[in-house]
């Protein structure tokens, strides 16, 4: 009994890591743009598709396909960033919602139109189970955990010390002042956006061997999972996002085991709505900002 719970919690932490890598990009984009990116899951999907394409059509190895998946997503993100995201600087919140909803529709359905709407089999990755302290865990899941930790440590360092991280923080605090002191706001927005999209793609590529199936609608599902996370974590809050993702991952895993698998996908929004009633400003922020 106890070991089942522990196993579910470990599974939840892995799921949470996947969400965390996607959500952190979304929350950083919110930080600089004040807009929720409804299309963020689509970059997760694009990364997975790029990697699947590389393995199935180009015959590359899984390691190489990771690079292909992430790079192709970066290219798409660059185009979207230049054409759409940079225009959103200073626009009202509603237009951000609508524009990113539009991007999500375009990206998702273009992929479905090109590759068909059916499920595809993802063949790469390391799925052999390893036994650690009596639990068997697929290698790929361990990789996900390690990458997640590396990503968050790296981001924390970048946001605190690097020039780009500092300019991101500056833009998220006051756009006008940034313009006054000569920070290129659209450039910061573009870079943050590409970084976020690349992280989402990375998360997608790393998760694909565990999920096995690849399909056009998978991005939307991830968007709906990460939206509650970034709000729970306090919009723009990197550390809060990490903990919210872990909480949601564990909660989903426990609900799937003890309540029913079919309720797993509603945990996020149910928790979100309850949280909004109780602490409308997020779990980790002291005051409501948005």
């Amino acid at each position, binding site marked *: 009994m106890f070991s089942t719970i522990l196993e579910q919690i470990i599974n939840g932490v892995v799921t949470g890591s996947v969400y965390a890598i996607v959500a952190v990009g979304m929350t950083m984009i919110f930080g600089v743009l004040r807009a929720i990116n409804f299309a963020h899951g689509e970059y997760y999907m694009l990364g997975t598709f790029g990697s699947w394409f590389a393995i199935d059509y180009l015959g590359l190895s899984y390691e190489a396909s990771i690079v292909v998946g992430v790079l192709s997503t970066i290219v798409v993100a660059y185009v979207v960033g230049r054409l759409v995201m940079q225009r959103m600087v200073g626009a009202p919140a*509603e237009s951000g919602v609508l524009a990113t909803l539009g991007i999500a529709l375009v990206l998702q359905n273009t992929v479905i139109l090109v590759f068909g709407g059916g499920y595809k089999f993802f063949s790469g990755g390391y799925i052999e189970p390893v036994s650690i302290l009596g639990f068997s865990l697929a290698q790929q899941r361990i990789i996900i955990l390690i990458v997640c930790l590396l990503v968050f440590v790296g981001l924390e360092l970048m946001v605190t010390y690097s020039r780009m991280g500092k300019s991101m923080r500056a833009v998220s605090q006051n756009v006008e002042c940034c313009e006054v002191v000569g920070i290129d706001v659209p450039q910061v927005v573009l870079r943050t956006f590409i970084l976020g999209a690349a992280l989402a793609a990375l998360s997608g590529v790393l998760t694909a061997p565990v999920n096995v199936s690849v399909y056009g609608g998978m991005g939307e599902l991830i968007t709906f999972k990460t939206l509650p996370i970034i709000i729970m974590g306090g919009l723009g809050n990197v550390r809060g996002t990490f903990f919210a993702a872990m909480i949601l991952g564990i909660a989903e895993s426990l609900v799937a085991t003890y309540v029913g698998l079919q309720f797993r996908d509603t945990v996020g929004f149910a928790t979100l709505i309850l949280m909004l009633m109780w602490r409308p400003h997020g779990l980790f922020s002291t005051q409501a900002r948005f």
Partner: protein
Amino acid sequence: MSLTEVSQTQQSRDLRLPFGLVLLALALCAPLLASTYVVHALIIALIFMLPAHGLNLLVGYTGLLSLAQAAFFGIGAYASGLLAVTYGTPFYINVIASGLVAGALALPLGIPALRLRSTSFVMCTLGFVIIGQAIAKNWISLTRGDMGLSGIPKPHFALGPLSFTVSGTMAFYYLALAIGILATLAVWMIVRSPAGRNMIAIRENETLAESVGIPTWRYKLIVFMLSAAFAGVGGSLYAHYLTVVSPLTFQMYYSTTMLIIVLGGGAGTISGVVFGSLLFVGLTEALRVTPELRMIAYGLCLLVLVFWFKQGFAPVINRLWNFIGGAK
């Protein structure tokens, strides 16, 4: 336009009334002129016009961006389907009951949701759609899960010895048209009333509206419920038209469609919603555009609307209307 101007120039006559009558006549004759498939497309457009009208009250007049419309659309469809299948109640009761149920459910959902600020409010309304779908899928004893409710009867009217079943596409078109016209008139009356002006005041500046004594909280709640009621009626019509309801009625895609109708047609205008539903739903349905292509087009439309045509087609419609009215 002053009176003297009219007498001076012969051509600038006010043709708005005859033009309106021609439009009405066209709407009435459509099933005779168009093929069955086009009439089907018009019916779908008319059905989607109802939740879009509701959304317009919320987005266009009160300034609240909501994605919950599909949830209330689904609630209406299920309420209607359950009533018809379980109790065999006639159509006109189902339609009214669906509107009431959706409107009533909007109260407990709206009270917490409307306390939130813009972004969180959007998230919360999105959550309603997702949770609605999960409930429709998993409350199997009530909703039969993924199998959905089937065998919802076509609308049937009985008055003493007279009875009439709306079975054909053509007959259903007139039913949908009648309900559509009633809904449009209802929205027009709401918007024209002092309440409508208060709603616009809330949209323009909520703090100022509050300070001049408009009970903004109560207004937002009532408009939220009203918009849900419109969506519920639309869902009921949808259920009776397709005769099946499935959990897929709760779809983000529907919320997006309704948003496109309102924003594309012109938020805060009634003619815009009518025009928008004909263009974005009716036309795509009539041209048999595949769902993927349609959604790509919707996505591009959203981007264009947000960045370049903030008012949608409203200015075009206005200019046309003024032109017909004789203004130069």
